[in-house]
């Protein structure tokens, strides 16, 4: 069996019905796949005002045209839905092996609708697709669920995407995990899956992905691989992983510390790529088709026994993966914890319970700030939520995943937590989603990137620090940042839609390299301009969804702390984010009105006039 796919699986969970449909060919051409294609389907099919945790929401898993091929890092799939954390469209990306397996089974995309009457899992074995009872898996961790399904179905090669206890309990920032340690992490896609009573999607595919012009395709693949092989970015990812970034953000005063109260962390060296490599790392681990292998398999240090403070014995694991830069920050600097073993432990707990470590750490940091200020009292918490407390970190991660005690409040995310306690100023994020690990007071460009990102604060839609700290540019001035962010957002969106990893872009395999790969795979002659246009079209589709969902210009903003309260010390001292200077330029550059609404001319230009 060979397949170039072009098919989607539509699953009605309410009535237990499964159907195979052809994917609209015009959309596949105009949106490539993955993020773009799924966003277009969501805009077409979903009422943007739907409650994200209601049966009316839809949950889409989408691969791209290069997923499951030997294009470097052709491993990615995208989860697209209305986010439980953000009440906006979200597009959450994951690697590992699950996305390729879906294509080997013969499907590009899965659209899930409704709500199953009882805990359910979807099992896809090539043409055999069935909904199975998953009551016995409900309550299980991610690792237990994956192992359990593999044993139960007797398929060693089975790939599983699932939720953990956090997704079941509708933790607002629950992930969908696959291959145990890979996550469609942000915006609460796991809570949406949990609200649908869907525990897992297990896939085994024995077919092959065919490409339109194999000779041209392999030529483009090898050209890209050769360019990446000796690229310094690629080598750094392989040698030191993403956590190497911590040295750079620290140097520029852009490493948010203790809920963004400071811009540098005194223990940053405990958490950086070098320390992880030299003291905790066992091996590199690659996602499917990845020639970088930035993943770190890690072990706890010798004296880590004190962090086994969990109340649930099933979480007493002593091995896992990570931490990535973001996790080392959120579970480290942002909560003031400089103990790598505690960070590792918290990171693995997040993976096994199925929670986004960024929002987890950031929400805990907000709670810690309120505890230090006396708003949260000892009577409310089982451990003192002091900044820097490793015990509080590990225990609260677990308590949040299970919604135990004060963890129940943290599980709502820091925006809802701050609002409930009447201190909304502790929420450090945009559109309900917590910031990742770049302080916009250290990198102005990240300010406009965060404020305008369609899925709330995110570093993966336009990553500015590399641009801002090179070519003689000043990361502390707003000029020139909006234009670049628009440009980068469009390119990144196209990249996401191909089904490959964004890290190829920083490893010598930029978007230009993906154009001939995609053209040969699809048999369509794309140019780089086509790709940028596809990115822009998709960005506008996401924007239209959000506007229809009720978001406005007022949501394209940043917390007061970043706009009015500069750091007192360090390289970024005295700087605040000049959003007023950047936002109008951004809207103009996008061809939007002063209120941030795409005009008719822009929509016509993008072929979106009918929407």
């Amino acid at each position: 069996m060979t397949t170039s796919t072009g098919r989607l699986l539509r699953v009605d969970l309410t009535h237990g019905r499964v159907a195979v449909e052809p994917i609209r060919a015009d959309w596949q051409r105009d949106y490539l796949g993955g993020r773009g294609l799924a966003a277009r389907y969501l805009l077409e099919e979903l009422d943007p005002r739907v409650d994200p945790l209601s049966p009316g929401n839809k949950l889409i898993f989408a691969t791209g045209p290069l997923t499951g091929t030997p294009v470097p890092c052709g491993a990615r799939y995208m989860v697209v839905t209305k986010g439980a954390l953000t009440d906006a469209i979200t597009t959450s990306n994951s690697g590992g092996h699950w996305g390729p397996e879906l294509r080997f089974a013969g499907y590009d995309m899965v659209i899930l609708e409704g709500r199953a009457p009882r805990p359910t899992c979807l099992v896809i074995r090539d043409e055999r697709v069935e909904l199975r009872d998953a009551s016995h898996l409900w309550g299980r961790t991610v690792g237990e669920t994956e192992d359990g399904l593999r044993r139960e179905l007797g398929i060693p090669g089975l790939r599983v995407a699932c939720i953990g206890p956090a997704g079941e309990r509708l933790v607002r920032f629950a992930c969908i995990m696959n291959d145990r340690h890979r996550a469609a992490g942000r915006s609460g896609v796991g809570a949406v899956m949990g609200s649908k009573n869907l525990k897992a999607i297990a896939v085994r595919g024995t077919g092959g992905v065919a490409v339109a012009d194999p000779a041209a395709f392999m030529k483009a693949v090898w050209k890209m691989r050769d360019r990446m092989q000796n690229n310094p970015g690629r080598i750094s990812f392989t040698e030191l992983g993403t956590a190497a970034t911590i040295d750079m953000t620290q140097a520029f005063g852009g490493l948010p510390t203790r809920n963004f109260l400071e811009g540098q962390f005194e223990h940053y060296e405990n958490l950086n790529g070098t320390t992880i490599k030299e003291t905790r790392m066992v091996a590199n681990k690659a996602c499917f088709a990845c020639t970088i292998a930035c993943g770190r398999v890690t072990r706890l240090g010798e004296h880590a026994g004190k962090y086994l403070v969990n109340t649930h014995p099933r979480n007493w694991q002593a091995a896992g993966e990570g931490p990535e830069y973001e996790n080392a920050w959120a579970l480290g600097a942002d909560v003031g914890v400089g103990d790598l073993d505690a960070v590792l432990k918290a990171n693995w707990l997040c993976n096994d319970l199925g929670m986004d470590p960024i929002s987890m750490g950031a929400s805990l940091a907000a709670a810690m700030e309120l505890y230090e200020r006396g708003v949260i009292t000892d009577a409310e918490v089982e451990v003192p939520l002091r900044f820097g407390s490793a015990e509080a970190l590990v225990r609260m991660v677990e308590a949040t995943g299970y919604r135990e005690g004060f963890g129940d409040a943290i599980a709502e995310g820091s925006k809802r937590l701050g609002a409930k306690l009447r201190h909304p100023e502790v929420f450090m994020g945009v559109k309900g989603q917590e910031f990742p690990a770049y302080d916009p007071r250290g990198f102005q460009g990240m300010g406009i990137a965060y404020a305008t990102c369609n899925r709330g604060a995110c570093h993966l839609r336009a990553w500015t620090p590399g641009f801002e700290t090179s070519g003689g540019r000043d990361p502390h001035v707003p000029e020139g940042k909006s234009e670049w962010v628009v440009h980068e957002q469009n390119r990144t969106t196209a990249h996401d839609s191909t089904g490959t990893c964004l890290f190829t872009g920083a490893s010598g395999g930029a978007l230009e390299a993906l154009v001939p790969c995609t053209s040969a795979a699809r048999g369509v002659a794309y140019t780089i301009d086509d790709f940028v246009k596809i990115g822009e079209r998709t960005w506008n589709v996401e924007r239209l969804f959000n506007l229809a969902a009720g978001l406005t210009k007022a949501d394209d903003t940043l917390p007061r702390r970043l706009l009015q309260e500069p750091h007192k010390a360090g390289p970024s001292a005295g700087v605040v984010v000049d959003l007023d200077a950047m936002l109008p330029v951004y809207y103009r550059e996008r061809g939007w009105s002063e209120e941030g609404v795409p005009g008719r001319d822009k929509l016509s230009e993008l072929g979106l006039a009918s929407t």
Partner: protein
Amino acid sequence: MNQALTIVPDKCTGCMQCELACSYVQTGTFAPSQSLMRVSVFDEEASYAPFTCLQCDEAWCMNACPVNAIAIDAASGAKVVVDRLCIGCHLCTIACPFGTVFTLPQSGKAAKCDLCHGQPACAAACPTQAIQFGASSRPGAWLDSWAAKVHRSHVAAFGE
């Protein structure tokens, strides 16, 4: 001097580029399930093991075949299945002590690594040189040092 595959499991990251390359040679598509090079993943030990036919000097599969459908390729020295002769009796798959002869579901016939007639696609595709192809005293020589290493770590963990 023979040419043989040498596998260095420590270098493998589990990316499956070898399976993609092998299946592309076999089928013209990217279908890891059809690959004759297979990567075993041992997550708990953080270990990945690519493995395929060792091209034994005295090949059990060859001896077992009742119709002489397994021959020696003159160019590479590899034991290859002659598709025209194979009757799909599965005896070679049972005879192989390493489990590296497979039956193709579509044709019902045997399939095994033929070293791509001297230019193995898996070795070319491996980004970390975990699979190498070159001169070797005998096929599978790499297993000796690997077995010794596993033995040492076992002794270190559990004693003699």
